[in-house]
């Protein structure tokens, strides 16, 4: 028996994941959660790899039975090699 939620439930669970990301200690308001095909795609930018793993774990926990794909990037932390002239 799979734990896959009823189809109508999926959108509420996706909303719940957004809520948990915002409130449940993750506070990653910059991570976007979208339905994509039969699963869910997470995109956005986080400061480090640990944060990215936490988000993936939370997504898998909230969305059992759904394919969770992530393309969460790490924020660039190098000094810039150019700037902008504002005359």
């Amino acid at each position, binding site marked *: 028996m799979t734990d896959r939620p009823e189809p109508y439930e999926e959108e509420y669970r996706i909303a719940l994941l957004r809520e948990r990301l915002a409130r449940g200690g993750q506070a990653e308001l*910059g991570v976007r959660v979208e339905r994509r095909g039969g699963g869910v795609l997470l995109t956005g930018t986080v400061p480090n790899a640990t944060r990215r793993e936490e988000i993936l774990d939370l997504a898998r926990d909230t969305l059992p039975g759904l394919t969770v794909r992530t393309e969460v990037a790490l924020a660039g*932390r190098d000094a810039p090699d150019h700037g902008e002239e504002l005359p």
Partner: protein
Amino acid sequence: MTLLGPDRTGRPVVRVAAVGDIHLGEDCAGLLRPAFETLPGCADLLLLAGDLTRHGTAAEARVVAAEVASIGVPVVAVLGNHDHHADEPEEVVRVLRDAGVRVLEGESTVLPVAGHKVGVAGVKGFCGGFVGRSAGEFGEPEMKAFVRTARRSADRLAGALAELEAHGCAVRIALTHFSPVPDTLAGEPPEIYPFLGSYLLAEAIDAQGADLAVHGHAHLGTEHGMTAGGVRVRNVAQPVIDHAFALYRLPLDGRSAHPSEASAPAPVPARYGLG
């Protein structure tokens, strides 16, 4: 490469480094320090546009403080919504100030650069939306309080910008966390624009005048925008600029800077000749 070399025009300039939304947790110590240590060679000041911490705890603020402490250039900051989450923003401010950061909330600071005054007016700002798609001060007390929060914030920004004018600053920068314009939100879902900023901030900036407005908050937005009055706006959220900071160079001799009489900004209806 251009900005990292000397200014070819020979005019006096201010080099502004800025970043927001670094969201440092307790496990992020040292993440940005190597890049920040290059600042004395390429910038005259560093602006931090809020959401410096993950949850707004004092422990996270200590991580932020260590990233910028004794970095060799003045550091000016506003808090963001994340820095309020733990309900101890005053602790966050205290930790940052102990490390020498000038934290502004409806205040201004003036820095000497190459014999000129560079002024920064800062406020966190708030939500509410943009012209034609904004919340109104009407109905339930919660709704009125929401809109009033944005209005008060914009009023404080206007007051702080007026102080810069009174000081005769050669360059005036408005620093906020929330966005004053929708331009720099492009890339965010349009439905959430009302939670990303308020036109009241832009109205204050245009009424008082500024040479640059810098904000964060919109991770999926874009860097460049402009207010209705023609003030350049830059979204420096770290995910947007994809670097430890962005760099801007502004001339210090671009405007006739004469100290003027300090005067409180006019209330909004009066600005438009209304009672």
